[in-house]
């Protein structure tokens, strides 16, 4: 269906090859996963398939790419629109109309398809994507998973033979991601559509993939079955790391496989020495009886929490449970309806200026909301001046977090992980006593995530500062948090140390815990240290 013949790509104004001599044949009905670090050329590879690269971006292309027998050299991207559907990371950016039905019909309108055919196809897609109950809803009111389903649906109404998705789940919470991926799985198996997906979070998607294309940062590519690639890939989900650490012969790609392979190890008995980290710092945040309501909607109900210095607290819970609202109440962006918030003896609503920066740092879901300089350097110098620290200190901090960012880059040209690092170093340059992050790992690759984990751990352990983060990412929580607070519908339903809370609910357990249950291990590191002690 798709053939790459010795494809190399160079973008204009550069001499760096993004891809080198990639040869690959993708058959009809295959599910192909493209992996690689940020900026390695995953998106370029996907956009080569429908000719957006180089027709839209410019560039030098060696070799040939053909889809269903049509070479992308000879036609412009529009000429392949009936053949290839493309879906981006953030569906809301791609929507043209206001409601679900209109959005589904829009593409067909552009391809000049007869009205009666359009009607039929819209109905068909509404059923296929389980969107029928949402047909008249406004797109802006849909959840992330529903929006992504509409985006996929509006690509599918054109009856493409190939569906190309660029990180379709990285902006979604785990449940929504599950929803989207299972639909992709169904499309491949029921309709024989060829699917090519780029994705960071391998633990979500690897079990669906027939083949993997692995791109390293230098343009070299490897193609193989998931088992082949995973046997030595640097990018791998936690269970693969577990398999390697345990020295298993094969890597298991699903929890089920791994459980079968690790029966002996987890069956043995271990001297249970679970030390939950005792944090004995002073109280920095005290919430007593905090409720928050917006116009006839209660978001937080009677929350009582005390948080100590040195704790790393993870707020979990589904979308709309009140995580962000709670964070914003602590930061002082919302005024609570009843109850009181005490932040180191201050009311967070009233502190301002330097004192605020030194007391509390907040990184919102979209870190670029904090960045308004024209370049990375300007941003860093502004932070130096604001916090009256040595010139260049913030940039140095950034260099420690993520080395090699050019100071003249525009903040919006940075990758997701680099942007987060910049926002983080701007906020950390004030050394706030409390650091708050809202969904920090959205769109980050494994490398950026491990940088984030080590930075935050150092901040909490070495400097004894408090870190609070709202997240869906259980793997992150397992590695980082000392305490988990679980919110549901504005209520605090669980509050305890990470081990207890994560192990008590199978659905929210990290992969390693699922494999190793009933042993109380959350991360590969836990497993190894437990095995070594015995």
């Amino acid at each position, binding site marked *: 269906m798709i053939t790459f013949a*010795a494809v*190399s*790509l*160079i973008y*204009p*104004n*550069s*001499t760096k*090859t993004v891809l*080198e*001599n990639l040869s690959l044949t993708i058959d009809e009905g295959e599910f192909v996963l493209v992996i690689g670090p940020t900026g390695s050329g995953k998106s370029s590879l996907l956009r080569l398939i429908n000719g957006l690269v*180089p*027709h*839209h*971006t*410019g*560039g*030098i*292309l*060696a*070799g040939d790419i053909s889809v269903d027998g049509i070479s992308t*050299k000879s036609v412009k991207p529009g000429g392949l629109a009936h053949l290839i559907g493309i879906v981006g990371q953030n569906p809301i950016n791609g929507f043209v109309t206001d409601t679900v039905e209109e959005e589904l019909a829009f593409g067909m309108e552009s391809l000049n398809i007869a009205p009666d055919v359009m009607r039929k196809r819209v109905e068909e897609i509404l059923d296929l994507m389980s969107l029928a109950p949402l047909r008249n809803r406004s797109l802006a009111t849909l959840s992330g998973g529903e929006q992504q389903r509409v985006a996929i649906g509006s690509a599918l109404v054109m009856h493409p033979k190939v569906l190309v998705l660029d990180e379709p789940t990285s902006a979604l919470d785990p449940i929504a991601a599950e929803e989207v991926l299972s639909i992709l799985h169904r499309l491949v198996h029921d309709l024989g559509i060829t699917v090519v997906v780029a994705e960071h979070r391998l633990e979500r998607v690897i079990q669906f993939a027939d083949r993997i294309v692995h791109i390293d940062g230098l343009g070299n590519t490897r193609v193989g079955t998931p088992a082949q690639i995973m046997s030595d890939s640097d990018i791998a989900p936690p269970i693969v790391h577990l398999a390697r650490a345990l020295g298993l012969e094969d890597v298991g790609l699903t929890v089920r496989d791994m459980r079968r392979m690790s029966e002996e190890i987890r069956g043995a008995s271990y001297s249970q020495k679970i030390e939950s980290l005792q944090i004995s710092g002073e109280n920095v945040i005290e919430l007593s009886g905090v409720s928050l309501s917006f116009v006839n909607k209660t978001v937080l109900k009677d929350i009582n929490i005390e948080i100590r210095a040195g704790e790393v607290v993870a707020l979990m819970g589904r979308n709309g449970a009140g995580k962000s609202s709670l964070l914003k109440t602590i930061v002082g962006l919302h005024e609570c309806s009843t109850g009181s918030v005490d932040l180191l003896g201050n009311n967070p609503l009233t502190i301002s200026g330097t004192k605020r920066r030194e007391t509390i740092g907040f990184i919102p879901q979209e870190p670029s909301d904090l960045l308004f300089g*024209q370049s990375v350097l300007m941003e860093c110098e502004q932070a130096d001046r604001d916090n009256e620290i040595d010139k260049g200190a913030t940039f140095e901090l950034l260099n420690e977090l993520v080395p090699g960012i050019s100071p003249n880059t*525009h903040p*919006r040209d940075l990758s997701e992980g680099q942007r987060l690092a910049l926002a983080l170093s701007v906020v950390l340059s004030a050394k706030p006593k409390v650091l708050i992050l809202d969904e920090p790992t959205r769109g980050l690759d494994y490398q950026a995530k491990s940088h984030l984990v080590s930075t935050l751990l150092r901040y909490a352990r070495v400097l004894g500062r408090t870190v609070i983060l709202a997240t869906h990412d259980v793997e992150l929580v397992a590695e980082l948090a000392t305490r988990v607070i679980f919110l549901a519908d504005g209520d605090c339903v669980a509050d305890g140390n990470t081990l207890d809370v994560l192990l008590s609910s199978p659905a929210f357990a990290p992969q390693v815990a699922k494999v190793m249950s009933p042993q109380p291990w959350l991360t590969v590191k836990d497993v190894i240290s437990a095995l070594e002690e015995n």
Partner: protein
Amino acid sequence: MNTSALVRFRPRTLFVLAITSAVSAFGFIWPFLINAKSIPMASMLFWTASAFAVLLVIIEISNESLDAKSIALLGVLTAIVAALRPLGAGAVGIEPMWFVLILSARVFGSSFGFILGLTSILASALLTGGIGPWLGYQLFAAGWIGLFAGWLPKKLRGKPELFLLVLYAIAASIIFGLLMDLQFWPWALGLQTQLSYIPNGDLLTNLHRFIIFHFATSMAWDIPRAIFTSALILLSAPAILGALRRTKFRAAFVTPIEFVESKKVAIERAKELKAL
């Protein structure tokens, strides 16, 4: 081969534009040129010219020179300008839209500026209900403001550029006011007052009367408009120009596309292109 260019009028289109502009310019200044017994139906003439202009835009939009990227850019900027216009409520000439039009035309060129002036006035007229006999005149005046802004010297950057843009904003605001006055002055006062247009009168008398009329009635609009627009440009130009130029760069207009045989040739070509 290159990626598509930002919209640029071809010679044929420029020729049509020049004719329609001349016709519409006549629509503005006819009171000084025509010796009629009564006020002629000059507006008929003018509506014809407007129809031509709109046609021109439709022709441009439907031919290949305006590709997806140009349309996206035009759509977004039109929406911004159109949404900004009602914010100032139009009172005493304070319309916070001209600066965006001028800055966009500065970055994206005169053809783009002309089309943006037309589309944004049209869109904002629909938003504000400002549809009337004056709309045709406004369309052209805004189109010209965009067109001429695109013709300012390209090389200037930094302080001189800012100074030039402020000067242009002042001139554009005053001239826009003058033209808008000119189009309704013949009708505005009736025939009896001392400032009225005299059909069949001599040029100097009419010019004198018009200038007095203009100073008496609408300087109070033009001066605030000029001050407001140039202040907005002073404040926002560095940031907005930066953002627009970055957009232009990222959109990769007129960037080489080459298909070569092998990786080796590709690397050589990349080096040659970079050396250029």
